[in-house]
């Protein structure tokens, strides 16, 4: 079988079960693909090729012995370098953690490992997940497979680019203000942010603890459902983990969305969106209507305060969380003579954006400003939650663009931090409110992918995936491959 890296997880899973292919063959195909394109894409901070082949051999052996294995057994995946992997360095794309090797696995990694997944390596990101372009990596920028001169989005840009380029069949990212969905939109992948608490954060290096959530990248809704199924669920090691039953996500993919009430929040169709993005989203809404969904307008009136509230709350939490990097327990340690070694370590170890956010957060929490900034932002958060609660009384899911723009050029926004922040204007409110969202391939604008965002209520992931899957049965956007990387550019076979 040629070009194994083009298979979807569900296709490969069936081929593995029928023993038409082995996990070693599948893993080698991905390592070869990485060899082939990684010099141009630069999605990985660390490639664990030897470990991956050993894991693949072990799975093939277990299968040969007749063991019943699940859908992720032998499937090669990539993990964002913010999730702890036992024995494999976990850098957060930061100098301060450049040589950090965790003594344990994050719960999501442990669950994938138990399901037999093969780990190809750790993916590049904006340092400590702070950014929307992956240009804030302390090591190197990642390039968008659809146009190598453009960013893949961020902060989970490495995971998104790896999946889009065929370097991995699926990946994990983290989404604090859009860091899964926005790179998903910019790279034509399916990228899901689960409800806060749906997926364990144990072993996820903390950025903003009331907002962070782990989510999957894949090339189809079905594959995303398979990944979510494995990582979702209660974890006693995370006190914010929800103790709620996990539904059968693939069983929800019925293809039937007739009568489903789909809301279109008018505030997400403002002047900020590029015309090509708006046009693609409007066409996608017509596709949903054609599938029998009932489309209606709704309002999320406090949307205009979302970015501001986020850029107080997230930096405030980050300034507290990143206090742990003191040069004593782990990570970089700088001696500074008579000066404060912790301050010197942090000066040498953190990049510009991380320092900027620590400063914003420390300022917003400092004496005299707490009420005007932090407390005010938390009240706005209540208003944004109420907006969504009212909308979900009338609608099952909401539909909107994921990002106001397609992928922008590398370097285009680095000099204007707030312009970069505005790229997350349509994803941030969902993090503030805690509910779920997914970005799926929604069309193209001048050859660049446009992400269609579906937003669901708390624990509404099954409905989101059903809509995403129904949309993918009616469209072929998700089956297209970027041509800039070479290889035959035929459409992927649909399942």
């Amino acid at each position, binding site marked *: 079988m040629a070009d194994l890296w083009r298979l979807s997880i569900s296709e490969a899973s069936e081929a593995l079960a029928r023993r038409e292919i082995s996990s070693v063959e599948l893993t080698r195909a991905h390592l070869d693909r990485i060899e082939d394109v990684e010099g141009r894409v630069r999605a990985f901070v660390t490639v664990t090729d030897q470990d991956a082949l050993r894991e693949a051999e072990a799975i093939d052996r277990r299968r040969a012995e007749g063991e019943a294995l699940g859908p992720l057994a032998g499937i090669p995946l990539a993990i964002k370098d913010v999730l702890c992997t036992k024995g494999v360095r976990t850098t957060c794309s930061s100098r301060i953690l450049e040589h*950090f*090797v965790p*003594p344990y696995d994050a719960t999501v990694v442990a669950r994938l490992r138990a399901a037999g997944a093969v780990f190809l390596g750790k993916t590049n990101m904006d340092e400590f997940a702070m950014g929307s372009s992956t240009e804030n990596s302390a090591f190197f920028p990642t390039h968008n497979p659809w146009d190598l001169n453009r960013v893949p989005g961020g902060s989970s840009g490495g995971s998104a680019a790896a999946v889009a380029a065929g370097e991995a069949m699926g990946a994990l990212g983290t989404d604090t203000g859009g860091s899964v969905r926005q790179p998903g939109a910019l790279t034509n992948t399916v990228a899901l942010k689960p409800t*806060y*608490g749906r997926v364990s954060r144990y072993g996820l290096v903390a950025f903003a603890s*009331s907002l962070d959530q782990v989510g999957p990248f894949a090339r189809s809704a079905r594959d995303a459902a398979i990944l979510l199924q494995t990582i979702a669920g209660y974890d*006693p090691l995370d*006190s*914010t983990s*929800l103790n709620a039953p996990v539904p059968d996500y693939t069983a929800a993919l019925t293809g039937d969305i007739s009568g489903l009430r789909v809301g279109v929040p008018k505030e997400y169709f403002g002047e900020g969106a590029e015309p090509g993005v708006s046009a693609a989203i409007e066409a996608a809404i017509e596709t949903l209507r054609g599938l029998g969904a009932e489309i209606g307008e709704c309002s999320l009136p*406090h949307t*205009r*305060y979302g*970015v*501001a*509230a986020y*850029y*107080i709350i997230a930096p405030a939490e980050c*300034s507290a969380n990143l*206090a742990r990097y003191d040069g*004593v*327990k*782990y*990570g*970089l*340690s700088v001696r*500074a003579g008579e*000066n*404060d*070694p912790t*301050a*010197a370590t*942090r*000066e040498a170890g*953190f990049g*510009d954006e991380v*320092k*900027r956010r*620590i*400063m*914003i*957060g*420390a*300022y917003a929490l*400092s004496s005299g400003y707490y009420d005007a*900034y932090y*407390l*005010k932002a*938390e*009240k*706005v*958060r*209540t*208003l944004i*939650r109420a907006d969504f609660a009212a909308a979900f009384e009338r609608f099952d899911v909401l539909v909107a663009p994921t990002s106001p723009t397609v992928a922008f050029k590398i370097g285009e926004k680095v000099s204007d*931090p*707030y312009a970069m*922040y505005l790229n997350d204007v349509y994803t941030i409110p969902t993090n503030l*409110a*805690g509910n779920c969202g997914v970005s799926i391939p929604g069309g193209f604008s001048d050859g660049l992918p446009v992400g269609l965002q579906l937003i669901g209520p708390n624990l509404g992931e099954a409905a989101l995936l059903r809509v995403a899957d129904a949309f993918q049965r009616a469209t072929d956007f998700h089956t297209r491959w970027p041509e800039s990387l070479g290889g035959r550019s035929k459409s992927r076979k649909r399942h």
Partner: protein
Amino acid sequence: MSIDRSVVDHVARLARLALTEDERDRLATQLSSILEHINVISEAETSAIEASANVLPSMDVMAADVARPSEPTAALLANAPAQEDGFFRVRAVLEDE
């Protein structure tokens, strides 16, 4: 609200960041500009609104009081920049006179 150098110096001290002179100047400009955008939230009517520190219902989370093995000390100390006799080694806070 504009951020001047003295505010930057104060906050940098709170945040334990030994910033360079260039960084301090640049941050004064950038933080002022970011705060200008962020100040839009002062327009939100919130007088009767409770704050949401997080999105979960308030509750105590208790773990069962069951002993279980912890990671070995050596594994947990393996990343320490300096260690001695199974402890993190730090700079002395109080020296003998």
